[in-house]
């Protein structure tokens, strides 16, 4: 066990998997000599060489598209896209090609690969460095979308992603890359993909969050606990395929639901979660589902981003509304 932040936990997972599985390779912009702009791949090129930790030319579509070919050819590529905003440049390769390749080849070439992408706001970065476009990808059949919220899950989910045999979009909440530490086992372990985690139990309402928003949800839950109100906090962890059963189970118990995400509200994941809860647990609901989200506006630059991003106070206000209903 070591006390690690998310960056170190991810680095350890990649290091161990590069050592364990000769098919594993890393490719992306500045992932080698530089060790990635967030240092997630720090030291790995030195240790495993330029053929396995590859600095590529600047071309997102090619990073994802050649990763697909590499996977079909028997490698296990971990592609890095430097910021989520640049993923739009690889949209065809990720959504039209990678996601459909198992289907298109009738199961012959189900591409096992991971696309790692720093995700979301909160670090006062330029435009296209702070967005939360996870809903774009959750809408695409065939893609697995994962977002850890803790160092323990970061390592365990990345190892699970690499061994899943599926194409996995691995979203890394950059705001909490170094903001929190966790006991992370040095050895090998995986965290199951497709399973949400109950981060805190409670009986009065359910709060669903993921990535950097989990912290806000937990802080709101703590405040509520001081008033003897029990919030059950669910860390979704895998956004697609979504573990809606875990959410439905919790709502059947609490009768109230708040969903928190950084992304804009309209057609965000909260809408889908609310719909699934409506389909399967409508009679358990004691109040309308509350959504605490980014606004349907362009993610602002640094000076205003704290006003755009949900924080625990907005979660708390939503929780109080649903508890009062």
């Amino acid at each position, binding site marked *: 066990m070591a006390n690690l932040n998310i960056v170190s936990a991810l680095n350890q997972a990649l290091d161990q998997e590069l050592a364990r599985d000769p098919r594993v390779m890393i490719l992306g912009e500045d992932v080698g000599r530089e060790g990635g702009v967030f240092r997630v791949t720090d030291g790995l090129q030195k240790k495993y060489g330029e*053929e396995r930790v590859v600095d590529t030319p600047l071309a997102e579509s090619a990073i994802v598209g050649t990763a697909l070919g590499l996977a079909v050819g028997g490698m296990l590529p971990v592609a890095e896209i430097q910021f989520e905003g640049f993923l739009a440049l690889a949209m065809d390769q990720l959504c039209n090609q990678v996601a459909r390749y*198992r289907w298109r080849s009738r199961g012959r*070439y189900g591409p096992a690969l991971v696309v790692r992408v720093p995700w979301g706001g909160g670090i006062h970065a330029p435009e296209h460095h702070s967005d939360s476009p996870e809903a774009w990808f959750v809408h695409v059949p065939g893609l697995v979308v994962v977002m850890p919220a803790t160092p323990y899950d970061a390592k365990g989910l990345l190892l699970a992603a690499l061994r899943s045999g599926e194409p996995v979009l691995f979203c890394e909440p950059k705001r909490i890359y170094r903001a929190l530490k966790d006991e992370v086992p040095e050895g090998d372990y995986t965290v199951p993909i497709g399973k949400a985690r109950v981060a805190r139990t409670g009986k009065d309402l359910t709060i669903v969050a993921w990535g950097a928003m989990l912290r806000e949800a937990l802080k709101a839950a703590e405040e509520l606990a001081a008033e003897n109100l029990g919030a059950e906090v669910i860390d979704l962890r895998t956004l697609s395929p979504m573990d809606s059963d875990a959410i439905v189970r919790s709502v059947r118990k609490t009768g109230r639901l708040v969903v928190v995400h950084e992304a804009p509200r309209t057609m965000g994941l909260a809408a889908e979660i609310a719909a699934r809860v409506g389909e399967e647990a409508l009679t358990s609901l004691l109040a309308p589902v509350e959504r605490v989200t980014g606004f349907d506006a362009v993610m602002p630059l640094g000076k205003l981003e704290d006003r755009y991003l949900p924080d625990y106070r907005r979660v708390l206000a939503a929780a109080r509304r649903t508890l009062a209903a």
Partner: protein
Amino acid sequence: MYFDRCDPLKGEPLSILAPDGSLREDLRPNFPDDRAVEFYERMTVMRLADRMAMTMQREGNLGTYAPFYGQEACQASAAFLQPGDWLAPSYRETGALFLRGVPLANLYRYWMGDERGMLMPEGLRNLPIAVVVGAQALHAVGVAWAMKLKGEAGAAAVYFGDGASSQGDVHEAMNFAGVFKTPTVFICQNNQFAISLPRRRQTAAATIAQRAAGYGFPGLLIDGNDIFAVAGAMQEALAEARAGLGPRFIEMLTYRLGPHTTADDPRKYRSDEELAEQKRFDPLARLRVYLENRGLWSRERQDRLEAAGRAEVEAAARAALEAPPPDPADIFSYVYRRPPPYLERQRKELPAEGPPAAARVAAPA
């Protein structure tokens, strides 16, 4: 030998077998006459297969189809691939896939809208058909890169057209191939049209082959209706790629004698005179003249070939038409390796049968 000899900047294509059937013996590749006969036979059947797909479409038995009529020599380049090489096709590579051992019935089924036609035979390194123009170039670089990393001697050939050469993915693929020196052979079938857009509006460059120089590897412009030039260029490109010399680019000048797809009306963008003129450069006609001049072909052999070819193609069409309908549950079969519980629930929502025939809307042509 050809890559060194021809400068793609000059715009003079490598030409060995002229349209009148005469051969430049000094340029002849390792492509003996018995091979030429064999290629003539397969290319003839290829053309019959293409025509059959058009007929099936007109009869309402096949959806939209992208014919390769006129491009048989280009497509025959696939016959130079080894079993361990990869082929990355676009949607116009029915001929190439046929030569690579994909049963014709499967190819018909694909175009009939039956996904089971997309399953490539075991052991054949064919990527599935790419419909997004140019996307497959990156996949070909990826599989070639994997071969290089694993120390496999082999190459990946990617097929695309003049239209695709304007796509960003083709640029990115050529750049990655150059930087990582992957054994990728880029085959651009320049058939003069991207649906309606003529080649001169696709790029201001004199040739597409000259682009290769910008990525640091050789490019070659050839007469794509000349099977000897195709053979020479392809054999050299594959040998050099397999030997670790990096990627190669071949622009095959050809002409799409048919429509872009069955939904296209080429009279809107080209004249009957132009079409008639282009038929003079037919890849099959000149090869036949060559073989006849050498006493290697006759009217009787032609009749026998056409009869046998028609039987082969008709049998494939029948097999495709008589295939049992696909299982609707297949919609869910290849989405994920392990389908999530909600997908299993959606599978149960499938209607027991389709809507009545009268309620069906005709597919957009």
